[in-house]
């Protein structure tokens, strides 16, 4: 019989708050190339350790090492780098546009570019990606027109979504990019349903869904894993662990007690925990999971370890809740820098070429933004007509909506 002690409430606290020294000692970073790569037909129970380590390919000198090295040719490497750099140029430009009032809102993905870009270039054209608001790298890697992206952000007359959606809530079916929802996590179980449908039809298309680590707490995360395992859906379930959910560090979602990759274990789903700032690791892990899915071996969960380098959004001020320079001490560095260094070590790239690339992507983005602006912005009010807000509520507009539309126009 144990004697009574008063119970204690245990609330996880982040390693550092504003004014304190950034501290990532909680993150164990194994050397690149040290984690083995199991064959894709490995049973989930025989690879549980992969949920607790970190798959890394690029070492500190920029060399690609170990069994997970995807051995990409130089063109693929250059394409990846270009898309990442372009993504950052685009984020910079849109951030400026927001400050100028040309758009009401913007979300950057700085520091996380490798994940969406690598994923986009590794998966197939007819697969479907169920993204969050921080996966614009997919659109850029898949060469969706920058002008169309900017038109959506500016909510102008050419916005394919007719100004109905907030900026960055893209929808791009033509490049396998599912309509972004403002509601966290809902797309995760939809990705599983989409993948189940592909299997029911005996097709070959697979799905990939994304949530942030904070969103793993939502019900749809659990729904997705439950359905994925029960029906062995051909789906990749990504958790982008960028350490922060607005002002809440990853411990609030349970990250101090275990890894997010480990969540898959209890469902009998194989899990990979991957250095998300390592472009080659992103390609390799995506390939491994996609091959499993395509060969009827079911779902895979991938935790991408990365860091949200910028504010949550243009409405957020991270200096209120984390050290301003935390990003500088992030152990996994900057995905663009790391891939650049790799290309340079390979002898196929140089600082000059890199500077030229940035100049080029900045120019391309600027031109696209200028063109988009010529179709209007929220500032000059050249937005899609109000009549349009009554369309697409239903396939055919019911009478009550027609009535309301007439009334709207009468009362102007």
């Amino acid at each position: 019989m144990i004697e009574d002690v008063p119970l204690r409430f245990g609330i996880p606290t982040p390693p550092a708050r504003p004014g304190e020294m950034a501290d990532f000692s909680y993150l164990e970073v194994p050397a690149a190339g040290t984690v083995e790569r199991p064959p894709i037909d490995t049973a989930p129970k025989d690879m549980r350790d992969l949920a607790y380590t970190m798959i890394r390919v690029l070492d500190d000198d920029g060399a690609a090492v170990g069994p997970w090295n995807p051995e990409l040719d130089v063109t693929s490497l250059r394409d990846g780098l270009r898309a990442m750099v372009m993504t950052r140029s685009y984020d910079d430009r849109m951030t400026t546009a927001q400050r100028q009032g040309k758009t009401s809102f913007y979300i950057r993905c700085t520091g996380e570019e490798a994940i969406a870009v690598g994923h986009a270039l590794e998966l197939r054209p007819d697969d479907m990606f169920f993204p969050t608001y921080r996966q614009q790298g997919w659109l850029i890697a898949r060469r969706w027109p920058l002008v169309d992206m900017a038109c959506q952000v500016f909510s102008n007359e050419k916005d394919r979504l007719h100004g109905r959606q907030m900026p960055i809530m893209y929808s791009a079916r033509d490049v396998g990019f599912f309509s972004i929802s403002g509601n966290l996590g809902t797309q995760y179980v939809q990705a599983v349903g989409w993948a189940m449908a592909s299997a029911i039809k005996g097709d070959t298309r697979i799905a990939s869904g994304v949530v942030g680590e904070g969103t793993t707490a939502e019900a749809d995360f659990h729904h997705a894993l439950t359905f994925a395992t029960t029906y062995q859906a051909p789906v990749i379930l990504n958790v982008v662990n960028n350490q922060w959910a607005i002002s809440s560090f990853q411990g609030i979602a349970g990250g101090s007690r275990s890894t997010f990759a480990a969540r898959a274990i209890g469902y009998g789903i194989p899990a990979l925990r991957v250095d998300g700032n390592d472009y080659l690791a992103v390609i390799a892990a995506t390939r491994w999971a996609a091959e499993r899915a395509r060969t009827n071996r079911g779902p895979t969960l991938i935790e991408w370890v990365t860091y949200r380098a910028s504010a949550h959004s243009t409405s957020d001020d991270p200096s209120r809740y984390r050290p301003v320079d935390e990003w500088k001490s992030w152990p996994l560095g900057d995905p663009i820098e790391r891939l650049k260094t790799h290309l340079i070590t390979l002898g196929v790239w140089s600082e000059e070429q890199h500077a030229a690339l940035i100049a080029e992507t900045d120019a391309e983005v600027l031109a696209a933004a200028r063109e988009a602006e010529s179709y209007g912005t929220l500032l000059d009010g050249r937005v899609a007509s109000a009549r349009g807000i009554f369309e697409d509520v239903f396939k055919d507009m019911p009478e009550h909506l027609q009535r309301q539309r007439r009334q709207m126009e009468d009362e102007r």
Partner: protein
Amino acid sequence: MTAMTMNGAIRSAIDVMMERDNNVVVFGEDVGYFGGVFRCTEGLQAKYGSERVFDTPITEGGIIGAAVGMGAYGLRPVVEIQFADYVYPGLDQLISEAARLRYRSSAEFTAPMTVRMPCGGGIHGGQTHSQSPESLFTHVCGLKTVLPSNPYDAKGLLIAAIEDDDPVIFLEPKRIYNGPFDGHHDKPVVPWSTHALGDVPDGYYRLDLGRAAVRRPGSDLTVLAYGTMVHVAEAAAQETGIDAEIVDLCTLLPLDTETIQKSVDKTGRCVIVHEATRTSGFGAELSATVQELCFYRLEAPIERVTGWDTPYPHAQEWDYFPGPARVGAAFRRVMAAR
């Protein structure tokens, strides 16, 4: 034509649609091998295989969420929520996703699906097997809401719902699965075989969504009802001798305001009946609409006869259920009004 129960007609509708369109898939809790706790999917797994008719984990949110993804892929999911009382964990996927996907993607992606659920009381189910949440769905733009009152309508409307390219909520008053019920719980149960609308075509036919039906023409007052309450209203008309015109709404959204207006303009009096709790129930929308459309023709206040604003009690079910006595009392008040 065959005499069908309401669940039989529902099963027949799904069967017909699975036969015609192999994108139609059926899933939910216990709907597969077992055929559903109300037998609405009996025999379908044996006939179409477990890839098209299957059991799911117990998670209404997961069921509807997966259906959204399947709909986006191009399937037409017909899912069952075992009781309407259990739809709440799935409301977010319905409200935030199914209802808005077409709009937010400017029709790049859509979520055709039919969400079936038994509703209403009268089976001693207590507060968690008796609810009528229809008004919640009607407040969500992007959802259509259907609530049939008989086997013939149930089949024709369910076929239309499955063919519809937008998400449709299909509520099934469980008390009338096996026979029309007029609220006289002490009387012997009447089977559908004795009812004209229990006679159902075996094959394909559809009844357009958004059309109400006048079940009983009358000149004294208009009753707006749906589901079980249509039969209760018929009993009340008969027992009071008041010549009520009974409008069965069939579809709550989109609402057939034309039929409603025509009837109330004629009678000048209106009683609205539903089983759901009163405050912000669908009767509120009906009353507001009638008042807007027929203000100058109204000779008496519009009355609402509804479930009380309490959870559905178990032992006192018949004090809660809006039966012929309460509906009849409303008829008299409305006729007495000058």
